[in-house]
């Protein structure tokens, strides 16, 4: 008797909130179909020599063993980590600077905030081409300025034909494009710090630097951790800019994990291997994210 009444209570509860469940239903269906199902299937595929027509052969961990022995994949990991180490601090430092500056009540601050945010919403494809033309070795604007106007260099430099300088430009693009996103979040965080704290500290004779390090940063802790985690995850997923500007070249020197995965899967039709790389990438990002959150989150004391 009681079980029936509890069940009825449950159904009534669901029925009463039916509009909530209906709202969740569509995104949930999309999530299950386009995110969860492909992830699971990809994991499954990584243990096969996957063929798109016909039957695939089970190969166990062979794809993973190949992944660990693949010299080009190792170069990709290295480049991806370098890209991460260059762009994440780059974005955060410039974004924090911009946020603090644009938190002041100066004229044109909305104009500047918009200007900084604009690159975030531009297409990766478009900005990659623009950077490619800017740094073109014969007709690029940068070379023209460096040689013909400022006379800093004697010859035009082939920026994208060299592994190191190409990676530098790709990282530059990544930083430029991402500053606005972090800046907007930092601005919101800054505006959550009560002004009285700063006043009180100033009365006690604190310098600007102390204000920054002792008040701003600690109170923005959770915001900073959030941005850090998101930027690191995002930086590992760099693909379009590398694919368009160098396609991993020359000689795989600018290859990142996703471009190498893409080449293996779609040009060489090695879908099992590509899936194994994807799984490894997922595990790696997952571990890093968990580590960051555990290490860096602390309750805030005023």
């Amino acid at each position, binding site marked *: 008797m009681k079980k029936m009444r509890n069940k009825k209570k449950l159904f009534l509860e669901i029925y009463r909130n039916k509009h909530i469940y209906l709202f969740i239903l569509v995104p949930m269906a999309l999530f299950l179909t386009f995110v969860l199902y492909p992830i699971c299937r990809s994991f499954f595929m990584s243990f096969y020599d996957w*063929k*798109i*027509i*016909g039957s695939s052969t089970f190969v166990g961990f062979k794809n993973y063993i190949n992944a660990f022995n693949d010299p080009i994949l190792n170069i990709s990991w290295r480049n991806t980590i370098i890209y991460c180490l260059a762009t994440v601090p780059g974005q955060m430092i410039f974004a924090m600077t911009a946020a603090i500056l644009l938190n002041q009540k100066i004229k044109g601050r909305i104009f500047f905030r918009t200007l900084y945010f604009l690159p975030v919403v531009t297409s990766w494809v478009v900005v990659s081409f623009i950077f490619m033309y800017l740094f*073109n*070795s*014969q*007709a690029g604007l940068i070379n023209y300025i460096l040689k013909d106007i400022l006379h800093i260099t004697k*010859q*035009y430099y*082939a*920026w*994208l*034909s060299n592994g190191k300088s190409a990676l530098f430009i790709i990282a530059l693009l990544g930083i430029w494009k991402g500053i606005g996103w972090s800046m907007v979040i930092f601005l919101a965080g800054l505006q959550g710090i009560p002004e009285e704290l700063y006043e009180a500290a100033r009365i006690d004779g604190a310098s600007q630097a102390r204000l920054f390090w002792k008040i701003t940063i600690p109170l923005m802790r959770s915001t900073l951790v959030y941005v850090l985690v998101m930027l690191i995850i995002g930086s590992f997923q760099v693909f379009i800019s590398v694919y368009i500007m*160098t396609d991993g*070249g*020359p*000689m*795989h020197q600018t290859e990142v994990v996703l471009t190498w995965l893409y*080449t293996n899967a*779609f*040009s*060489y*039709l090695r879908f099992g291997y590509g899936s194994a790389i994807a799984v490894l990438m997922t595990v790696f990002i997952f571990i890093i994210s968990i580590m960051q959150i555990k290490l860096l989150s602390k309750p805030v004391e005023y």
Partner: protein
Amino acid sequence: MKKIIFWLIITIFTLSLTLIGTAEEEVTITFWHTYNVESNEYITLKDVIIPKFEEENPNITVVEQQIPYGDFHTKLVTSIAGEIVPDVVRMDIIWVPEFAEMGALASVDSYGSFSTIAEQVFPGPLNTCKWGDSYFGLPLTTNTRILFWNKAMFEEAGIEGPPTTWDEFAGAAEKLTKPGEKWGLAIGDCSPWNFLPWIWSGGGDVTDEGITTATGYINGEDSVNAIQFIVDLFNKGYIADTIIGGGIGMQDGYANDVYGMFPGGPWFYGMIGGQFPNAEINTSLWPAGKGGSVSVIGGEDLVIFEGSENKEAAYKFVEFMVSEETQLILAETGQIPVLNTIAESDYIKNHAFYPIYLEQLKTAKARTVHPGWQRMDAAIKLGIEEAIHGVKTVQEALDGVANEINAIIEEYK
């Protein structure tokens, strides 16, 4: 009451839509291609060729779809995986063995008219449709690469005419180069598409005829000498930086008297003519080396996908495209026909620029017809890049390529 009427109308409407679909016996075939939508070829396809076909075959509708070349391979692969495939595809000749091997293409040699048509097309292009014992398509157009030389720059440098031997070629490259301003030669990148003509003209090759090994071929003496020839020119500064990923485009450099020579094909007339209508274009055969003047065959084949539900109609369209009338129409838009009947015609002989391509096609070779070609292509490209950048010597680089190609051949056995 209102609600009932509303739902009744919706139901009738939906039902009638589905009924309309099944009322007629029409067949619709989809045709995928990579024609640039602003090009002459595309406009001709849409306004002349397809309407003509539909007029002659009133129960077949052709729906054409353009996909950019860079994405095309991926798009084909994903459509196969998703099991929604087009009926007819204008496919780059180098992909046919790959897609045939995986079972994606339908063989066409069982159709009645096939053997007649097969005798009328050039044997080189026809060979690119063959995999195993069957043919999986028919060639649509063919092309090859020849030398484009800038007459104005040649005259300025005091060179008499286009080079016909490798020594003349090296000499011309040297005289045409002005460091920082002009370059004697421009090459697009380090891929086989650009370098195989040098390897073949030098007497070398990628593998043996039966495609069993690359050792002694891609890293054999003739191939090494051919690549070394170009590497030397690069080290002396005669080659523009397009080869390592910089520089301005071929047509821009050629039309603006910056590049003295570059390997081009029939598609450049549209490209150069479109942007620089006053530029003069001069061409000559590929400079002859130890192996003669041997260039590389390009082009497209028409293939029918195995997953197509309208193979009969698809084959009719393929037949139509390879027929003499259509080939002549295509010829006028700059695509070299594949029928040997047209090749001997007055139309071709009097054409502004075709004769030299047909001359070059007599000796031109196709890239290795093997499903693993994409990977072999990447391996050769990497090897040549290493040689050009000076990371390895030419012999070392090509030895690495030979090992890579042997491994690929092993995988597909």
